[in-house]
């Protein structure tokens, strides 16, 4: 080989088209939405149920109930006990996955094609006929409480939770965590879970996605057979109001004495998932902190060695969620790292990204899109965005073209509108005594120190 061939990076070969698989949607008579997408080349089907029963649909005096209800689905149905349900699923090789976001509750299994009917029958039984036995709901509630207690000593979770408290004002649900508040959660029972299920988990609030080795007409038939004879109607969902909790930059220090690292969160209120700037913000964020070669990661990690990684993200939620910069840095370099993060934000706003940066970010996002859609579960999760945020059914067919259209003007405009360093909340979980003096010297905002209340009183230890 000549040295020129070695020295220069090889050019790409001819590009091959990628098409997001066709999504076929129909609404059954009882208002269940059936969505089928034929995809992949293995004998697998993912059945993914989405219910409009996310944490944003619970009221403040029920904080944690959406998650408790979703997790309590494993407690069994009117047809089988919780243990029987687990056996019935797992003897078919099915792993039940349930999760709750602010915007929806998701229930999913992936099955080999031959067992799709049995899998769907079980899934329908779980979603339609949960029994919520008292003992099981109490058990799951106690586990949820324990999880909240654990988050209080886990620096990353604690930083995330405390950042939400700074970014959102009182009365905004996003201020709390989807795990709920201990004082409220402690009082929730099977009666509450049953009522929440009755009010929220009804056919008109439910979509069933089948993705994988299944044709559209057969897929809709399968959904019809499992969910078509389900009756009921959802109660109106409460209005959600999201207001900022900070109006000028401040630093909130959560004391964790002896920490060898500081978990840093810097952010403010962002934009709803359906905001017209969503795709432009993906490009902007890839440049700031959404890729390995982003400005924040190159500066804080590769230039300064302050951290193992730094990133930023606009959360995608129905209402405006957080825009957040996240990193974990050595205690002795914390104030320098915070300063550098602000420098990067200011520089991006002042000078704008270069044309190369924009082109690279567009190509990165358009290129990794198909890489992230190799499994039926990944495709189903993308389609769930269509369902949850009521996007056009062909949204992902032109998603790459939309990304590649983002230009310098729109990125600059979006940056100046949606990134506001003068109103960022800085939350740091770390050793307050070591951090406070240098953070105050930074002069970017008032520094307050929180000494967290001890974990909620534990039940008395059992006698042994």
């Amino acid at each position: 080989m000549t040295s020129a061939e070695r020295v220069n990076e090889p050019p790409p070969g001819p590009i091959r088209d990628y098409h997001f698989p066709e999504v076929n949607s129909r609404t059954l008579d009882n208002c269940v939405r059936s969505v089928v997408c034929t995809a992949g080349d293995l004998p697998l089907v993912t059945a993914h149920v989405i219910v409009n029963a996310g944490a944003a649909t619970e009221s403040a005096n029920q904080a944690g109930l959406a998650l408790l209800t979703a997790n309590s689905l494993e407690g069994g149905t009117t047809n089988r006990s919780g243990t029987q349900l687990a056996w019935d699923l797992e003897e078919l090789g099915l792993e039940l996955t349930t999760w709750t976001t602010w915007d929806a509750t998701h229930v999913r299994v992936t099955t080999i094609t031959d067992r799709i009917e049995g899998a769907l029958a079980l899934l329908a039984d779980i979603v339609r006929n949960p029994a919520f036995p008292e003992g099981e709901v109490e058990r799951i509630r106690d586990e949820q409480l324990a999880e909240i207690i654990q988050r209080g000593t886990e620096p990353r979770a604690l930083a995330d939770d405390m950042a939400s408290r700074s970014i959102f004002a009182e009365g905004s649900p996003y201020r709390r965590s989807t795990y709920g508040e201990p004082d409220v959660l402690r009082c929730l029972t099977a009666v509450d879970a049953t009522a929440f299920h009755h009010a929220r988990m009804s056919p008109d609030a439910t979509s069933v996605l089948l993705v994988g080795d299944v044709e559209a007409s057969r897929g809709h038939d399968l959904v019809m057979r499992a969910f078509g004879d389900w009756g009921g109607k959802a109660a109106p969902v409460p209005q959600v109001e999201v207001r900022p909790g900070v109006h000028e930059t401040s630093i909130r220090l959560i004391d964790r004495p002896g920490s060898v690292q500081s978990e840093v969160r810097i952010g403010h209120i962002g934009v709803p998932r359906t905001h017209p700037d969503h795709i432009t913000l993906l490009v902007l964020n890839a440049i700031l902190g959404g890729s390995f070669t982003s400005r924040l990661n190159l500066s804080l990690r590769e230039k300064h060695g302050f951290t193992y990684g730094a990133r930023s993200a606009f959360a995608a939620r129905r209402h405006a969620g957080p825009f957040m910069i996240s990193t974990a840095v050595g205690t002795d370099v914390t104030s320098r790292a915070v300063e550098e993060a602000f420098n990067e934000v200011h520089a991006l706003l002042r000078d704008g990204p270069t044309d190369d940066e924009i082109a690279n970010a567009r190509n990165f996002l358009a290129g990794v899109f198909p890489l992230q859609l190799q499994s039926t579960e990944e495709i189903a999760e993308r389609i769930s965005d269509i369902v949850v945020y009521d996007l056009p059914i062909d949204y992902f067919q032109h998603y790459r073209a939309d990304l590649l259209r983002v230009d310098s003007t729109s990125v600059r405009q979006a940056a100046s509108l949606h990134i506001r360093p003068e109103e960022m909340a800085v939350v740091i979980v770390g050793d307050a005594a070591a951090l406070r003096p240098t953070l105050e010297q930074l002069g970017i905002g008032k520094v307050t120190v929180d000494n967290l209340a001890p974990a909620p009183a534990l039940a008395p230890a059992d006698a042994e």
Partner: protein
Amino acid sequence: MVEIPFERYTLDNGLRVVLSRDASAPVVAVNLWYHVGSRNEKPGRTGFAHLFEHMMFQGSEHVPEMVHFSLVEKAGGSLNGSTWLDRTNYFETLPAHYLELGLWLEADRLGWLLPAMTQAKLDNQRDVVKNERRWRIDNQPYGDWDERMQSMIYPSDHPYHHSVIGSMEDLDASSLEDVEEFFRTYYTPNNAVLSVVGDFDGDHARDLIKKYFGSIPPGPPVPPIPGRTQIDAVIGKELRVTVEQDISLPRLYVAYRTPPYGTDDYYTSAVVAQILGYGKAALLYRTLIREQRLAQDVEAYAFPIVVGASMLVLWTTALPGVTLDRLESALHDQIDALQHVEPRDVTRAVRLMEARQLSDLQTVGERADQLSMYTTLFDDPARINTEVERVRAVTVDHVRSFAARFLNDRNRAVMHYIPKTMNGS
């Protein structure tokens, strides 16, 4: 079940190559396994194999600093590497038309890394890795469990005695001379496997691989793994330690020394891990969590490692108000019950493992990583298709016998993590 097709050959310099074509999506995975991990580190240099992995992303003779990452990202690809006990892997998934870029980048750092190494790069990545250690271990509740467990299960002269991340002191001691020596010893074509999976033309891929990798000279034979690699099949006693940490809930870790990956007993241990800890019908979920309400969670994991012995690790977090002594006693009762395990427990475990393997094989990156793994560890890429048979061959009698031989108080290490202040005030 599905049969993954592949073609395997070896270049003159000893580089083993596995190609597997799948044109269902316009993507391609390039994956390299180097048969070197923390087990190969010499005394005083723990953590070096991993620090070296970081240096592999810092550019090579024809790839300027930071350009490795930026070329892949602007091509629309994703990339990473990881270091473990037995191996170090490097991988990128790219749009299919960028296959040549991936091969060029990987070949350049295998053939021409050293001219690009500088003290400044080493100092920077040392800081990054030290922060990685703080992030994963030192500032993380229970974060040092595997480091502690490895040091209990393996004697001090065994290569698995120390952790992959290594100690801060040893990271500080690492020099550019170490980088050069490690590179010349272990980063050779004859100590590596290259797998390419996805949408490519076979002849074209073979030509490109020859073009970029063919001229890299082979290295010397790889030296034996340092330390004592053969150890007793069982520990011979129970080891215990209590660790006080800034945590809110006590957690119990129990580990057993078990036969290494690749042996029949290993597959039994993998099935045992599923029986005990995977899914809601798992034995420990049914008992400790659902029936007895002692624990918040339970996990079980058989380490797929090959030198001398593996380990089977269980952990479970106590619910508030439950002592670890009580939780431990309940756990041991269930482990003892394994000697009378029912056939349906085994069937359930095998079904879940079959389903997961099929699901994992959907991505080209996972296929490439498995092909590299089976070739590196067993010189047998066909295991991507046949490994599941080894799992299916595990019977109730195997599980009962395994439990009696290995899961007892003459072969376990027990670790109690307890909160620093138990009164919470």
